[in-house]
Structure formats: C-alpha cells, structure tokens
C-alpha cells in the first residue's frame, strides 16, 4: 500500500459513509429552529464590538507558522534532493539516516536550515541540555552536526541565536515539555514505527 493511498481510502471512506447515512439530517434546520423557539442568546453589545474590532493575531501567527514549517520542509527536501543528485558541491553529502560509528554508536545527523542565523546549536538529553554547535562551513544556511549516539530515545531542540526551536521536521515525534515542544529521535532497534 503506497503511503498516500491510505489517506485517499480514509478520505473517501469517511465521505461516502457520511453521505450514505446523512438521511437523518433532512429538515434538521427546521426542527432546530422550531425547538429553539424563544430561547435566545443574550447579546452583550460591548463584547460584540470588542470582538469585531480586535485584530486576528492568532490566526495570522498560525498561518505564518504553517507557511514557515512548509518552507522549512521544502528547503530541506530541496537540499536533500540536490545532494543526492550531486547538484551542489557541498561535500560530503548530507546523510539523514544514522550510520554506524567505530565504537558501536551511531552517527546521527542533525540538520537545520537557518538562513540568517549566526549561531545554531542542538541541546538534548544526550548532552545534558548543554549546546553542541552545528556548523555551516559553506555559508549556505544549512547547519549540520553529526553526533555519535548509542541506541535509544533522544529528546532535543535546536537553539537558533539563543531561541529554542523544538519542532525539527526530521524528528520521529514531538513531545511537550514545560509547555514547549521538544523533538524526539529514536536511534537503532525497533519495529513500532
């Protein structure tokens, strides 16, 4: 089964199911309108005006973060594909999957596009939440660090010019920690994914 087909089957199945069983919704509007009768919500004009005049900050920020995340993923994919295809001269190519190191640990690559950053590091439970610097030797805005890790589960976040960023698009999962996001990578073993 291809990765997208479950999406399509699920989408179709849910829509078809709802369409087939929606018969009971006929004249729902009428029934409710009659039922509501005299039950009317009380309007507080001041509240209403305040709401009307308030800027829609939350929505904008939400949209921005979605755009940002999408852009990040696209950029990463672009870099990845370019590297795979040998289109760039950034040597060595970025390897996103852990590779085995000499001491039995695995070299885990942390990679983050941060075009305007001057200082990027990764903190996590593998370094006692003390920064390990990411490098961007060719100044292409793609910061990387390869860290040897033994098999296990690792929580981490990036720190970009002093600000924490806990949603690595390459993470296996995210957790909330003290109200903030942390990314999680599983190294080695496993059949649960």
């Amino acid at each position, binding site marked *: 089964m291809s990765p997208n087909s479950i999406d399509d089957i699920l989408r179709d*199945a849910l*829509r078809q199911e709802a369409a087939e069983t*929606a018969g*009971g919704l006929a004249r729902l509007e009428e029934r409710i309108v009659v*039922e509501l009768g005299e039950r009317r919500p009380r309007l*507080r004009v001041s509240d209403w005006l305040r709401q009307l005049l*308030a800027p829609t900050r939350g929505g904008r920020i939400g949209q921005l973060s979605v755009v940002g995340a999408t852009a990040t993923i696209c950029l990463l994919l672009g870099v990845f594909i370019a590297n795979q295809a040998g289109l760039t001269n950034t040597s060595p190519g970025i390897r996103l999957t852990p590779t085995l190191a000499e001491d039995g640990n695995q070299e885990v690559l942390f990679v983050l596009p941060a075009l305007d950053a001057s200082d990027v590091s990764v903190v996590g439970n593998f370094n006692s939440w003390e920064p390990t610097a990411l490098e961007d030797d060719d100044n292409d805005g793609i910061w990387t660090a390869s860290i040897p890790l033994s098999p296990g589960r690792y929580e981490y976040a990036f720190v970009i010019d002093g600000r924490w960023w806990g949603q690595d698009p390459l993470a296996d999962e995210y957790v909330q920690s003290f109200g903030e996001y942390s990314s999680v990578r599983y190294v080695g073993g496993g059949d649960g994914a």
Partner: protein
Amino acid sequence: MTEEAAGNVYRVQDEVSLLRASLTGETEAWGEIISRYKDAVFGLCLGFLRNRADAEDITHDAFIRAYVNLRRYNLEKRFSTWLFTIAANLCRNRLRYRRNHPVAELPPQIRGGTDPATIVARDDRHADVREALTKLPYGYRAPLVLRFYNDLPYREIADILSIPEGTVKTRIHRGKAMLKELMEEERDPS
C-alpha cells in the same frame, strides 16, 4: 417578507452577518448556519462515534448548544473551529456514556457501482478502513477524522481536541500506521 424570500436573503449574507442576526434572536439565520455546517458536523460525529443514531443526536445537540452559547463565541477564532469543538466535546461525553451503555456499532456498508470490478475492490477497502477505524482508540480516531473528513489543518485539530499540535501530527501518523495494521489483520486473520 415571505419565509422563502427571507431564506434567500440569508443565503447571500456572509457568516458574520448570519451570526450577528442569530445573536439578536433571529433563529432563521441560525437555520442557515445549520444548513451550511450540518454535513461537516454530522460527518465528524459519525467518524468519532461510529454510530449513526448517536451521530444524528449529537449533531442536533451541537447546534442547539452552540446557539445557546453563541455569545461566548470569540470572533477572533474561526466559527467552524468553535462549532467543531462543541461537537467533539459532546461526542466524547457520549462515548464515555456508551462505555457503560453499549449499543450496536455501525455495520460496514458495501455498495455496488457502475464498474463492478473496481468499485467492489474499492468498497471492500472502504469497508475495511471503516471497520479498522472503529477499532482504533478515540485519541487516534478523532484527529484522523478531523484531518481526512473535515480537511482541517493540524493547528485547528489541536484547538478542537485541546491537545498540542505536535501530538496531533504524531497521532495522525501513528493512527494511519495502526489502521494499516488493523486492515491487514482483517484481510489475513492468521
């Protein structure tokens, strides 16, 4: 104004005007809101509850409750998010109640079509996925329904279910994996 004419006027008004009219007690305006959203709310409830009678009940209750509480609705948020949150909470309560008062679950429905070979194969898989969805824990089923039936972005799903956005992504990802597993089990029970 005749009832029909009033209906036409409401149909062309935008959502905010309809909500404002509803707030001043014009229940017909609320009727228009219902007709715009009833399919979305019903599909959500059906997906969450996996039972047609319960889904119809909760759809009805959700519109009543939303109307009664309309003054608490914050215009900064999308109306649909608020409405879906009410419906999702009602579904959750109903599921809790059903744990002690179980009823028959929605049977998988299979229908033929114009091109029997492909349609039957497709419907087979639809039936499988519906059955698998019923077996999935609520915590995974709900985000999947909001994502794939209601087409909502992660942020809105997170708001509706009161869970972090990261958790929504994780649950959808795992939920799909679990669905696949369950579907494979259905096909090959050994």
